[in-house]
Structure formats: C-alpha cells, structure tokens
C-alpha cells in the first residue's frame, strides 16, 4: 500500500537574491500531515530563506514547492503569501501594536460573520490560555504571552501548515523550554503540522519528529534526533551535533579499528573501511567510561559539573584529548589521573583524508 501523499513537498529548490550565489541549493524534503519538523543550522545556513520560500516571500530559481498537491512556487511563479494557507510565527512576533490581543487574532478572519469571528477568537484565546487578556494591547503582555498571541493569530485562519521562525529565541532559557513544549502540544492537539527553524539543537530535538541539518545552503542530513546524534552521515553533522573527538585509527578487520584509545569494535557506518584503510572514528563523551582495570590512563585537564553528570576533558600521554561524561558522584580533581575505556556498540567512521589527517585526535567541533 502506498503511504499517504505528503502534505508539503520541496523538490530540489534553489533560491536567493543573487543567482550566482544562491542561499539555498537543491533542497528537497517532504512533510506529512501532523508531523513536526525542525530545520537546524547556524546563522547564514539558509534555513530562514527556506522557510521564507515556503511562506512565499522568496521566489525560486529552480525546483518547486507543493502543498496538498497545489503548486505554491516554481521558477517564474510564486503564489502570493496571502493565498497559500500557510501560517507563520515570527521571531519578533510581529504583533500589530495598534490592535488588542483579540483584534490581532481576528485579523486574518476577514469576511466571516461577526459571531463566527468572536467564537473562533474565544476558542483560540482559551486554547493558548489567554482568556482574560483579550482586551490588552501587545505592549501590556509579557514575552511568553506575546508568543502565545502570535501563535493563536497564526492558527486563526486554519492554515494547512504553521511555520515558526526562531520563535523562542527572545525568551529566557527557562521559559524557552517550557513554552516550546507547550506550543508543540497545542499544535499537536489541533492535528497541525509545524516547521520550526532554529539554531539551537536542544530546541530542534525537542520539537522535531524529523530534523533537517542545513549548512551553507545544503541539506546535510534529514532524520530523527537519534539518528543525527548516533548515525551522522557526514563529518559536518558529526561535528555540529553534540560533542566528541575524532580519533585517528587503522582498520584491521571488518568493523574493527585500532586506535590510540584501544581496539574499537562495532558496526561501522557511514563509511565501510577495508582492511588497512586509515580512518577517523567519532568518540562521544558518553562512549568514554571510567574503568579502573583499563590500561588507558589520562589526566584530568578540565571539568564542568552538569548536575546529573560531570563532563571531563582528559589528556592521554600522547597529548590526545578526549571528552568524557562521568556519573556525577565520580569526583576527580584537575590533574588527577583516571583510567578509562572506550565502549562502542557502533562505530561512526569516516575516511581519514584531507587537512589534519596526521593528527591523532581532533575535537569534533573543528570539523565543520
């Protein structure tokens, strides 16, 4: 049986103001009804441009975008934003300062009978928990309340899809997490599909059933948060997501690599090395565990207490530095020596080529 046709399809879209230097290149993905998607990347990676292409503010140089089978954009044709049935929550909320909360929500409900508008507005105020604040003006609201108003306003015309452009970045860290979950729940309760753009991986992982990692206008990987962390498909994603160290080694047998931190075994991906191939293996902090019986000894260089665990930076005698997440009660001072072992069930492996190939270890964040 065929799966249901996707709600939104981006097929090989390229867009940007200067055709010689497009901001987004050859980007494709599908979004199913009710799915939550994150587009993750650092600033300038093209994620906002991609979102604005879906919204209809950026024309396409090539490729096409369809929503529910209807073509929204293709080269030479851009359906105006107001005709797309796409809602948007802006980073600065863009609430109309001259209108009250109710009037802001009702703004997109033109042409309906007054009673229906009032009912919809009331329902939405209830949905976002602002029943008592309907008559306030935006400047009389807290950041979180403005955020909820913006969400209700975007939902009011019953769009097929909601776009969220870094909507939580103006909030306190504490509120950001809480509101992120709340907004996600509200959208899910309406069966709404949501595409969130962010530079914050925690936010992207908390939001997205699927996460797309963008870099320099290209989609580097599309997958679940688990697969992005544990099965990165290229060195950039491996370095961008989470922390870790690339350790140089040599393949001595299928799924076995000899390195300075011992013999590592596990199913190799995405690169399947042949015997004798020079490779790099990604070692995550959670792969490095304390083991008094291990022959590998290292000195504590730095420590960062994180509550439930402590992140240690350890230096081997060779000078190679590893990061390691110890249980919180394993308390070691800087300079102290500890014995560790690298425990892997699967190996994230890339060919060892290019600059730095002779280095024994490279922090993963440097491979970008």
């Amino acid at each position, binding site marked *: 049986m065929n799966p249901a046709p996707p709600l939104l399809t981006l097929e090989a879209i390229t867009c940007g103001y200067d055709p010689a230097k497009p901001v987004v290149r050859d980007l494709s993905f599908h979004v199913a009804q009710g799915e939550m998607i994150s587009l993750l990347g650092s600033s300038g990676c093209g994620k906002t441009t991609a979102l604005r292409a879906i919204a209809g*503010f950026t024309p396409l140089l090539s490729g096409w975008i369809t929503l529910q089978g209807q073509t929204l954009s293709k080269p030479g044709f851009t359906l105006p934003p107001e005709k797309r049935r796409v809602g948007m929550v802006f980073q600065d909320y*863009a609430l109309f300062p001259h209108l009250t909360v109710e009037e802001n929500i009702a703004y997109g409900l*033109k042409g309906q009978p007054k009673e229906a508008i009032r009912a919809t507005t009331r329902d939405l105020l209830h949905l976002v928990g602002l029943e008592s604040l309907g008559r306030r003006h935006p400047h009389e609201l807290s950041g979180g309340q403005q955020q909820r108003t913006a969400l209700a306003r975007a939902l009011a015309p019953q769009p097929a899809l909601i776009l969220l452009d870094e909507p939580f970045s103006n909030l306190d860290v504490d509120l950001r997490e809480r509101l992120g979950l709340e907004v996600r729940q509200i959208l899910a309760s309406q069966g709404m599909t949501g595409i969130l753009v962010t530079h914050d991986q925690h936010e992207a992982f908390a939001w997205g059933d699927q996460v797309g990692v963008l870099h320099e206008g290209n989609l580097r990987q599309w997958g679940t948060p688990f697969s992005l962390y544990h099965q990165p498909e290229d060195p950039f994603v491996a370095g961008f997501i989470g922390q870790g160290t690339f350790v140089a080694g040599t393949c001595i047998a299928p799924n076995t690599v000899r390195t300075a931190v011992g013999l590592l075994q596990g199913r190799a991906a995405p690169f399947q090395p042949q015997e004798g191939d020079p490779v790099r293996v990604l070692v995550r902090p959670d792969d490095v565990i304390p083991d008094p019986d291990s022959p590998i000894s290292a000195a504590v260089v730095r420590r960062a207490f994180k509550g439930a665990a402590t992140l240690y930076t350890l230096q081997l005698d060779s000078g190679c530095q590893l990061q390691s997440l110890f249980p919180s009660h394993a308390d070691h001072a800087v300079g102290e020596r500890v014995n560790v072992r690298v425990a892997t069930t699967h190996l994230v492996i890339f060919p060892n080529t290019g600059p730095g190939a002779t280095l024994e270890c490279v922090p993963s964040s440097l491979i970008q």
Partner: protein
Amino acid sequence: MTHSAVSGWRWSVLAWGFSLIILIPIGVILSAWITPEWAVWRHLVDTLLGELLFHTLLLLIGVTMWVLILGVGLAWLTAMCRFPGQRFFDWALILPLAMPAYVLAFSMLGFLDYGSPLQGWLAHQFGPNGYWFPDTRSPAMVVFLFSLSLYPYVYMLARAAFLGQGQRMLEASRMLGRSPWGAFFHAALPMARPAIAAGCALAVMEALADFGAVSVLGFNTFTTAIYKAWFGLFNLTAATQLASLLLLFVAVAVTVEQQMRGRARYFSTDGHAPSRDRIRLRGLPALLATGLASLVFLLAFALPVGQLLVWAWSRLDLDLDGRFRDLALHTILLGTGAALLATLAALFLGMVRKRRAGERATRLALHLATLGYALPGSVLAVGVMLTLVWLGKGVDGVFGTATSGVSTGLSGGILALLFAYLVRFLAVAMGPVESGLERIRPSLAEAAHGLGSSSWEVMRRVYLPMLRPGLLTAILLVFVEVMKEMPATLLLRPFGWDTLAVRIYEMTSEGEWERAALPAIVLVLVGLLPVILLVRKTGRSGG
C-alpha cells in the same frame, strides 16, 4: 540627604518660575476673554470675521487633505517601494523643509504670474488669450502652495513610522491573507496613523501661524488681520481679540499633535527597515511614482531655488551692498543671541527634568514651558507687547512718571524680541539638548568621581564633551528658525533692526520679487544646514 532634598525642591520652584514667565504672553492674550470689549468685537464681526473664519477653515481643510495625500503617498513610495530614483527622492523630498512658505510663495508667483517667463512663452505660443492658466491668487493656489511647503512634516513622520514598523508587520499581514494593498491599508496605515496625524497637526499649525505667504498671496487670515490692526489701525485691543481667536484654532491642533506624538511612540516597534523586500514597481506604476516624486521635488524645491538664483544673480551687484551687510549682521546677532539664550534655558530645564522627573508638578511645569512652539509669531508678538505695556504701566506707577522712556524703550527693545524668540523656540532647543542629557547616565559621574575628579572637573571633562553635539545642534536649529521668523520680528523689531526676513517682507509687499531673492536664497541655503543634519540623523532607508 536633607541637603539634596532641599536643593531638589529649589529646582522645582525655579522650573515653575521659569515656566510662568514663559506663559505670561499667553495668559495676557487669554485675559482678553475675561474682560471682553464688546464694541471692538462687534466691529470685528461686522467687518472681517466672516472672511477670516472662512479662509482659516479653507486652509485647515485644504492643507490637511493635500499634505496627507502628498506626505503619506510619497512616504509609502520611498520607504516601502523601489522605483527609479527612489534612493534620491528618499532624502531629497525632505529638502523643501528648508524653504519658508513665504519664499516658496513669492518665487512661485514670480514664476507663474502674468508677465512671468512661463506665461510669456505661453502667450507667444497661443496668443495672449489663447490659453487657460490658473488664477495665481485664488484660494486653490494658496492651498496648493501651502501643501507643497508643508507636506515634508507628514512625509518625514510617516516615513519614519513606515520604516520603524519594518517588513515583519507587512509579512505577518500577508501571511494572514491580505494582499499587498490590503496589508498597507489594514496594517501599515493604521499603525502609522498617530505619526501621520501628528505630522498633519504640525503642518496645520504652520499654516495657521504663517504670515509671510498669505501676505504675498493677498489672502486675508488672522495673522494678516492682526498685523493690520496693529500697524494699520494702531488698535492693540483688536489685535488681541484676533490673536485670542487664532489661539483657539491652534489649541485644537496642538492638542491633536501632543496626543498623537505620545501614541506614535507607543505604537513604534523596533522592526528592521526593509532592504531587499521592497515592493518593486515596474512599467506604468514605476513611471507614475518617479513622475510624482519628481514633480513634487521640482515644484517644492528645485524650481523655486532656480528662480531665486536667477533673480539674485541678476541683481547681485545692486543688492549686495552695505545695506545687505547690515541686514545680515542684524540677523546673525539676533539669531545667535536667541540661540544661546534658548539653549541655556533648555539646558537648565533638561537638568531639572533629569533630577526631578519623578514629580508630576515639575513635569507639568517643564511641559508648559515648551508649549510656546505652537504660538503663531503674530500672536506671540501681541502677547509680549501687552506684557511690556502692562509692565511699563507698573514701572511708571511706582516711579510716578508718565509714559516715559522706560516703557517705550522696553517695548521696542531687543530684549522683547529675544524673549519672544525664547518663548517660541525653546522647544526646538529642548530636543537635541535632552537627547544629549539622556546619554549621560549617573554611573558616568560616579565613575569620574571615583577616579578622583571634582564636580567641576566632571562638568568640564565628562558632561560638556558629551553634551557638545547636542548643544551645538540646538544652537544651529534655533538660529535658523529665528532667521526665518517673520511676523514677530516684523512687529517687535526696534527701529533700524531690519533682518533678512523683514527685507523679504518689504520687497514682496511691493511686488519686487527680484529684490527679495538675495535674502531669500541666503535663508534657504542656511536653512539647508539643519535639514541636512536631519537627513543624516534619520538615515537612509537603504535599498
């Protein structure tokens, strides 16, 4: 602690004392309502009042309508759209602000009048009666010239509001189902409404206060009537009655302006100015946009300046004489004196506000002190004169002398004129001085004291250098305003103290356009300085 509380209390008393002095001229005029002289009123009603009211209403309605259309339309085009010449017009359309209405009026009259090169050419082409030409002194022409001169107030405020809203708001509106035009009418325009209304009120206040342009155009309003009552009939009572009526109109305008300015601040968002996402006009719309902007710029600035230059050049060797040097000297002396006075007063009031802003009473005093900007020059002149007459009587009474040299000396004096300028232009100086003071946080003085500076040293090494740009801007702005001021100068100047503006009045009232051109072009050129400052400060909208 006690010490600072006492000195703080003194600040408030000083502020109130100062405001009351500033308010005396207004109070004196309003007192005309307490003791009305019915005979004078009846005479006014029988003779003038109907025409004055009709003309004033006509000006109010016509100017409001046209500055709205020109100001908002052009602001929208240059702030939000892209069309050929948009970057140039963005700032060039502010330039007419440098041109006093009376200068625009007489140079356009010279350009359009019967016997002008334009009409000469038309007559040559079509015969003396073979073409239609609008009546250059009709009420429609008056409204048209005022609108050309005053639209920049609306243009600037509306432009700032549109740029301040940023692109986000329009995009939000589009995402909620509005077309680009729908977004303009349902989001951008309502949000800019307070700013636009404030601009309109400013334009109307200018139109009500104008004396020079309506004199040139032979269009009777309250200001010309006040002048005639004073200089023609020597009837200060009638002048006062007329001034008190004009004040009513001004009060309405100033109330609207004050209310809306507050709300405009409250509606502004710190949006990002659009750079790439402007509405790109092509074909006919682009042509119309460029055409409209060019036409307005041409009529409101380029043509009159060109005309003035031609006239001034043709008479340069005749007009650029010792007399002109005296005119310039008087203008500079009065302008500098008033500028220094107003800036010092603004610095004083600014310091009071910095220390005592928490008290409602002090805030009110400061607010009242700056209301003089709304007073038409002729009304102010009447108020100052009445005050001096009253003072003179007081002095005479005490010393038992009859109408003596004291009162006439005072009433004709430079001091009266400087005081009038101070009342009128204090608000102009307040703006830059206050924004300078705002940047000085208390921690700066504390840091300087912590580094071993005495109070005097803090003043010299921290406050003054930080305030210098603001103070200089204030001096420049007031200087230029004083230079352009016509009615109060005309009514209050001591004998022999003619200024450039007075010269322009004298020459234009005799129809000698060419001879008014040299002082006018000087006014326009110097007047461009603050406009350039303004353009640089508001920044280009990019693009």
